[in-house]
């Protein structure tokens, strides 16, 4: 019976295992018309202190502000001034210019690894703008936009990417796993979704101290399958913690489409319903909608009205990382057919529609930003690139395992230094 061969006498139907399959594979013609795209401005905006259940219809809707006419619509329009809009546009464009240059630097062998966020810039840049500057960010690995929105120096980022002698993380972390306590940006982990309970814990600590800082965390839709996601949302609702969970649904987790995280059955925003947490589902390529949703959640958290789960519905326009080739598993047409457009183009067109920007200004800005990135690279390269000797002294490898070096690490540090002297008796040329 165990092999299924002997089912005589049973009238029970055969079971069938469902293994999700994405709609399109390489070479397929892509048609995204099955994705429901709601009317910009048509979604109601509950009060920030509303009962969580008032938001539940929004978990299966899509909050949108910018329309095809490039104008802002409806109650979620954050009514930002042109200066702020231009600032967000500039930062998103800087993230893209940075990504393009760093991707090339990896291909040129200056570092081992890089990850772009092309198409997803609004979900980090505009969300960060909606937070206070000292609200604690617990990022995943594709939130370079949060750092850039907080004004982090590009050379610091590049030093980290190159693991060079000026890398303040001492060459210990995989490229792009930044950390900046000064900018309230938590250390990035390569283990997925671990930041979610941590963000909840930070928020609980802040609340227990009667502070006003909240926490915001980011996670990919694929990683919502981790147990940490459930733990974090449970703790957040149990203690009514002032925390925002940003789920970046960019459709792909390396080669696994969102169906492997459950997207065939429910939206990711709808996860909030089971916890009794406020949930919002937002067009992640609409900079104004992202800002408005994040600000709503931040105001809610700061008013002790509880946590919010925001699903940012977007598309990962590039590969997972420099180690990934998406043409091996998905149709190249997906990117061009994506129905929600590109966040930079959409904000640019909105500003032009407002009479606050022009194609010429955009072109000049892009050029200037690219120059800025190149100059920063040159600056950082003076401190070395990966594998070219300009790393931190060997002893630093053993520091910060503990606050103080115990005897066994001291012994091992001596060994590492001895090995180096044996290998390079004349001293290594740098």
């Amino acid at each position, binding site marked *: 019976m165990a092999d299924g061969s002997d089912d005589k006498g049973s009238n029970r139907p055969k079971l069938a295992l469902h293994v999700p399959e994405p709609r399109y594979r390489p070479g397929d013609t892509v048609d995204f018309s099955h994705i429901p795209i709601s009317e910009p401005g048509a979604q109601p905006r509950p009060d920030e202190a509303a009962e969580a259940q008032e938001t539940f219809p929004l978990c299966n809707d899509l909050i949108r502000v910018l329309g095809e006419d490039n104008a802002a619509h409806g109650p979620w329009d954050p009514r930002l001034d042109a200066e702020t809009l231009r600032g967000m546009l500039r930062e998103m464009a800087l993230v893209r210019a940075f990504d393009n240059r760093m991707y090339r630097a990896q291909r040129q062998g200056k570092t081992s690894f890089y990850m772009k966020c092309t198409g997803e810039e609004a979900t980090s840049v505009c969300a960060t703008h909606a937070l206070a500057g000292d609200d604690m960010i617990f990022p995943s690995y594709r939130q370079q936009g949060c750092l850039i929105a907080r004004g982090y120096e590009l050379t610091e980022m590049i030093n980290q990417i190159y693991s060079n002698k000026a890398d303040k993380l001492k060459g210990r972390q995989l490229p792009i796993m930044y950390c900046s306590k000064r900018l309230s940006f938590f*250390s990035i982990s390569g*283990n997925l979704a671990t930041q979610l309970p941590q963000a*909840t814990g930070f928020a609980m600590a802040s609340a227990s101290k009667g502070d006003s800082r909240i926490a915001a965390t980011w996670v990919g839709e694929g990683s919502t399958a981790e147990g940490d996601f459930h733990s974090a949302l449970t703790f957040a609702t149990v203690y009514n913690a002032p925390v925002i969970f940003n789920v970046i649904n960019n459709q792909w987790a390396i080669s696994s489409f969102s169906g492997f995280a459950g997207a065939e059955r429910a939206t990711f925003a709808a996860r909030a319903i089971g916890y009794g947490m406020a949930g919002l589902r937002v067009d992640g390529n609409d900079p104004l909608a992202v800002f408005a949703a994040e600000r709503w959640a931040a105001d809610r958290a700061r008013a002790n009205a509880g946590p919010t789960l925001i699903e940012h519905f977007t598309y990962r326009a590039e590969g997972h990382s420099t180690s990934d080739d998406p043409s091996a598993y998905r149709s190249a047409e997906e990117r061009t057919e994506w129905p929600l457009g590109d966040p930079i183009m959409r904000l640019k067109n909105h500003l032009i529609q407002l009479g606050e920007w022009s194609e010429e200004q955009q072109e000049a800005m892009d050029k200037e930003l690219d120059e800025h990135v190149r100059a920063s690279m040159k600056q950082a390269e003076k401190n070395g690139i990966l594998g070219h000797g300009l790393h931190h002294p060997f002893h630093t490898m053993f520091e910060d*395992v503990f606050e103080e070096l115990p005897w066994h690490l001291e012994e091992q540090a001596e060994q590492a230094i001895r090995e180096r002297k044996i290998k390079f008796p004349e001293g290594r040329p740098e």
Partner: protein
Amino acid sequence: MTPPAETMDQERQTGEAKDAGETREMNMIEAINSALDNMLERDDDVILLGEDIGYFGGVFRCTAGLQEKYGKTRVFDTPISECGIIGVAVGMGAYGLRPVPEIQFADYIYPGLDQLISEAARLRYRSAAEFTAPMTVRSPFGGGIFGGQTHSQSPESIFTHVSGLKTVIPSTPYDAKGLLISCIEDNDPVIFFEPKRIYNGPFDGYYDKPAKSWKGFDEAQVPEGHYRIPLGKARTVREGDAMTILAYGTMVHVVESVTRSKGVNAEILDLRTLVPLDIEAIEESVRKTGRCMIVHEATRTSGFGSELSALVQERCFYHLEAPIERVTGFDTPYPHSLEWAYFPGPVRIGEAIDKLLQD
């Protein structure tokens, strides 16, 4: 198992028990409660969290009365989620708190391992010390209470294998308090395993005799106030020259009783801290006695005894007169009905002592 008075005096001097106030007889549960009480009082950033630890005071009563005294935002119950408990403690540490999470049984700690191993233990390193995880994870461990395989395990070697974690195991009420205070004040994450078989009294390994309480033992005389026992310092339980026995937790008491009943003049070291290890004390003793036995309750293969055995061999080989003996639990789950067949009791220890002396 009261050691000679001069040993006790010496031991107290290695700690900072002076000016720690009135002394009172406490069992290990009360000593742990007293340490937590002292730390909650001294440092507003210390908070306690865990399953059933708040109003109820913990399934072993270690946190009894603390919520009432310090309030619900400093001592509180959690959802049944070890991943969540450790994960939020990492975030609280990032904020600047000094959380003391309790995992109800060491056997339950595994869902929290990713948060311990990949996060708490690595945060200082990966952020170049911008963020740290100054937490003390308390958890009762070990068997001998008919807990079956899910309430009896000794998983310490999982944690000693992780770079960035300290592992501490007390064996007396006095040590439990002083060590726990040092752990909470330490700026690195610490696993603090409490040998639950000796919560209420020392255990000599003779399970068929009436259980003893801590009443009347010098080690149960615990100051009410704050004092520290430094991490990384072993305690000489008794001096001797026939052999060195390395033990920790419950097994300290078992080996002490077995050596006494056999009349063996063994030197017994209670390691107290596995990482960082007091290698000096170990080397000094083994060089003196020339024989070494290692005793732990945990399973044998890749147990902490393997590490100890390797270290002694590497560092004291030319002083050894016999192969190192390891006495451990068997490589099976901890069985319920055959608990005492698993436990490295007087027979197993006695046999190893004889062998070590004959070799």
